[in-house]
């Protein structure tokens, strides 16, 4: 394929594959320091590479996350670079302008850091603990469910539904999250349940 010509064939002739990339392996260490000064250090040296899937659209491009530190080793891991997975059959290492900037989604300034509450009529969010937040959510849910649960309809048919609280599911969570969500939501009798599929 043409795209092979552009990337992989060239990489082969260049004598280095992606996975094996490290400065030492390429003999860079032997180069005198004065010579090295002209070339910026290769930023992926000594990073951990993890396979992931782009979180945006449904092309589901394969991506490689490069981190300092490894979760597998139980370390704190900071992602420092994101790039397309050249082995992925669909994207072949390419990424769109969103995928190519995934790193700045991971470390966006507006990433949420802690649970917060905005009380009725307030003009601000206040930080609360996870325990407080979850207990509050569950207390709200139970109060509403207990007050508005419909066990039987007017014809006496068992309907066991709860329609005064709704759940809007995500579009980028995993299937495993989706299933856990499904179980929790449906077991409570929630019918007002939808996802991003329509919009």
């Amino acid at each position, binding site marked *: 394929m043409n795209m092979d010509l552009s990337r992989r064939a060239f990489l082969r002739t260049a004598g280095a594959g992606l996975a094996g990339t490290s400065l030492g392996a390429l003999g860079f260490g032997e180069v005198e320091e004065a010579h090295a000064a002209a070339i910026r250090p290769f930023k992926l040296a000594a990073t951990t590479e993890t396979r992931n899937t782009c979180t945006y659209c449904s092309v589901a491009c394969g991506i490689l996350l490069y981190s300092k530190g490894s979760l597998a080793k139980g370390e704190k891991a900071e992602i420092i670079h994101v790039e397309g997975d050249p082995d992925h059959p669909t994207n*072949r290492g390419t990424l769109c302008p*969103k995928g190519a900037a995934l790193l700045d989604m991971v470390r966006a300034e507006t990433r*949420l850091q802690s649970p917060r509450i905005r009380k009725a009529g307030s003009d601000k969010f206040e930080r609360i603990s996870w325990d407080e937040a979850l207990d509050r959510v569950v207390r709200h849910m139970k109060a509403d469910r207990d007050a*508005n649960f419909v066990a039987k309809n007017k014809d006496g*048919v068992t309907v066991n539904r709860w329609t*005064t609280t709704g759940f809007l599911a995500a579009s980028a969570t995993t299937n495993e999250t989706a*299933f856990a969500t*499904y*179980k929790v939501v449906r*077991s409570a009798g929630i019918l007002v349940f939808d996802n991003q599929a329509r919009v």
Partner: protein
Amino acid sequence: MTNSWTDIRNTDLVVIMGGNAAEAHPCGFKWVTEAKANRGAKLIVVDPRFTRSASVADLYAPIRQGSDIAFLMGVINYCISKDKVQWEYTKAFTNASYIVKEGFGYADGLFTGYDEGKRDYDRSSWDYEIGPDGFAVVDETLQHPRCVWNLLKAHVATYTPEMVERICGTPKDKFLKVCEMIAETSSPQKTMTSMYALGWTQHSKGSQNIRGMAMLQLILGNIGVRGGGMNALRGHSNIQGLTDIGLMSNLLPGYLNIPAEREKDFATYMSSRGFKPLRPGQMSYWQNYKKFFVSFQKAMWGAAATPENDFAYDWLPKLDVPAYDILRAFELMHQGKMNGYVCQGFNPLQSFPNKAKSIAALSKLKFLVVMDPLETETARFWENHGEYNDVDPSKIQTEVIQLPTTCFAEDEGSLTNSGRWIQWHWAAGTPPGEAKTDIWIMAQIHQRLKALYAKEGGAFADPILNLHWPYKNPADPTPEELAKELNGYAVEDIPDATDPTKVALAKGKQVVSFAALRDDGKTACGCWIYSGCFNEAGNNMARRDTSDPDDTGAYLKWSFAWPVNRRILYNRASADVQGKAWDPSRKLIEWDGSKWAGYDVPDIAPTAKPDTVMPFIMNPEGVSRLFTRGMMRDGPFPVHYEPFESPVTNVVAPKIRGNPVARLFKGDIEQFGTSAEFPYAATSYRLTEHFHFWTKHVSVNAALQPEFFVEISHELAKEKGIVNGGRVRVWSKRGSVKAKAVVTKRIKPLICDGKPVHVVGIPLHWGFTGAAKKGFGPNALTPFVGDANIETPEFKAFLVNIEPLAGPTV
């Protein structure tokens, strides 16, 4: 997608209509450019705007938004009148030859059975004539006046090239050029792929837009073949998966249904789900419905789902309306009939139509929970952001609880792409601050709710108390545990069918695929179509073998695709009635005399004889439907209906406004504008630099496309005195926005029924949080009405007015 992204490389012709793949799916679009570069494939783009896809197209044809059905029916009319039909395919693999019941008819834009008061049809006449043998009656000669083919022929005859030009504004010569190129693919050796997305779905007749193209693809013989298919380009990374797993009001996982309240017990529920074959010898796969349903109930409630309690059938909530979709949810909220709402990674304030209504609706809630990795406008709907969100917090009594979640880089699990590939991914980063995974949060909610009910009692607690929660750490199930549940497992030892003394599958073992599921409660399976994803062979979703024999683009050893790792749906149709590939160079599977084999997992029983069992085994007919019986609310054939807000009247059915069976809420009807007041045809869309409302939080993307704008033609700009880069106000009956103006040659006025129609393009991505400049987006303007079948809002066609604003022009 019936096919996959990588399969597009096999096509001869790509039609992008109802979408803008280059813009929205650049890396998937790669396979279009590959097909062009390596196969000499051609690309047609039909769109109101000259898009990024159009920039590399061989042929671009303009069309007025909301007139796709007229266009598509026009193409079908062309193909039929020029005899450009894949006849063998059409006769054998579609219901062209099926006789429709006497009494069925169509006139003035309406089918038989319309009830104006209910805005609904009695669809009983929209069906086949059933013979005394219990099978549908067919006329293989296609002579019968009521056979589907003749009804179709008559139905599309209205849509002449002249009529298409009148309705769509597509110049006749361009339309005919499109027809010629498409018609060529009626050859068994030529294929065409349809790539579409929200440009077709976000209409009050979205489902019928898609049907229109599906019908065309069927008569051209382009379904089930390499390089063919109906390829819905899903928007979000796992929206396919969330839909597969049934996170919708009316679904159970695997496209099973939540019971309606008329289905008062399990027996009644199953009585309409027999799926008896409509032709002799045909396979009707949905006959296995009960196995899938019971296995799901076992996954939900484990030992508490017993044959005695109909596998806890009553524990499922039952619907009193067709669906509690988002529009109904916000309507109920707006009426004050809802108290709580949980938004998991979703930003309805920006995403839903009629933002003013959304704010009013959210303001009536007692509590709103927002789980998200990022700030969202929804979580801050109560906060005043000047003209961008002009609210008074002190008047809003909704308590908002914002929960920080991890993002893709910090969690593990699988995502299902548009081509149904379920790919596992691994976590690489430590979550920021106190962010937690969604699984943890959902587990916490369940565990705490369960504890409260156990302690305090309350409304019908059985389904909560008995929810099957078999995880090693109930407070934090692992993705693997959940994936194994989705796959399914033996609840108890399953005896071998031939030798009852042997155990076919021991208790606790993973089932190999859904073929092993049972309706007696001995198996559990979270989502039958995902079965096989994590069986005893391991996590098949984590496979990363790039081998691809014959370069078909199937990549059978890369991850797992549902169902049973099949990459092209209906692939039996890639071969003729005898089981030989239509095009030997594009072989997918073939009948070798005793079984089906080839490069893909056959979409048919491996030993099903080719001349007996037809390819569309999910239909009881075994064939595909040109005439869709009573399956769709708005007709067995697509009809051109104007959008609810249209710049012109419907020339084929002048009395009908919008889709005659689309659901309308009272207050929303009053908020529809007319072309007298709002003369310009607006449409909303995505830009390639941004993803929904997420990337405005990403500094890089914010720099690449910083500020909200609208696009108009030079002609409209001149008429209104708008300068390029200047500021404008755009308003509809529902709201008003301010934006920069991009004046472009890529939008041109369309001449519809002799009058010019000006298009105003309004991209989506801005809001009042994030790194990009604050902006409005289109949903302050969009109408609150959805598709008649699935309630997708009509975001693509509505009316606005526009005027220049004083102020700096940059």
